[in-house]
């Protein structure tokens, strides 16, 4: 059974600081997704990582994937208040094209 562990569960950070969210998964996967959720809203797709060594960046967020270590990171650079949200990683089991297995989510709070 695929297990996805995400940490930390909660992250309070000051504006301007850098931090990293980690996502570990237990079995082979060739697709990893990062989503953002604002309270009461949809899960918004941030990144799709398809191969080992993939790195994608959008604004202050950068995601990377190491399939050998079964690890993805979401790095936040110079955080701003607008980034406050819950971030989820989700993994698609290799050889399947259906269900995503989600991490527990990281609730990020950026303080002024």
């Amino acid at each position: 059974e695929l297990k996805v562990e995400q940490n930390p569960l909660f992250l309070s950070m000051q504006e301007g600081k850098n931090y990293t969210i980690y996502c570990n998964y237990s079995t082979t996967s060739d697709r990893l997704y990062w989503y953002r959720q604002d309270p009461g809203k949809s899960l918004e797709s941030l990144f799709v990582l398809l191969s080992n060594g993939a790195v994608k960046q959008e604004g202050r967020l950068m995601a990377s994937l190491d399939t050998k270590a079964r690890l993805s990171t979401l790095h936040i650079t110079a955080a701003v208040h607008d980034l406050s949200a819950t971030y989820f990683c989700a993994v698609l089991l290799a050889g399947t094209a259906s269900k995503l297995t989600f991490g527990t989510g990281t609730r990020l709070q950026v303080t002024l």
Partner: protein
Amino acid sequence: EAGVTQFPSHSVIEKGQTVTLRCDPISGHDNLYWYRRVMGKEIKFLLHFVKESKQDESGMPNNRFLAERTGGTYSTLKVQPAELEDSGVYFCASSQNRLAANEQFFGPGTRLTVL
């Protein structure tokens, strides 16, 4: 382009009652998924439709849950009879092509409270 929509946004029912949730996927998306998040836990997969066919229903918790997608367009998820542990947020998602990145686009969810 309209995103995935879900109705209702909230539902409060009593134990033993029936509730039907509806999901309208993005137009042209053959794949439709249901997930739910029980309070304090992970978002968990329930099932996957390809057009009107159930491709994978391994996540459906028990036979009180019935999902349909007649005509391959919108889908409904019925819970009958509802139990307290069914409370949570039910998300629907859709995607266009199983062979591509298979990016799933999520709706805002239906928050179900069973009293």
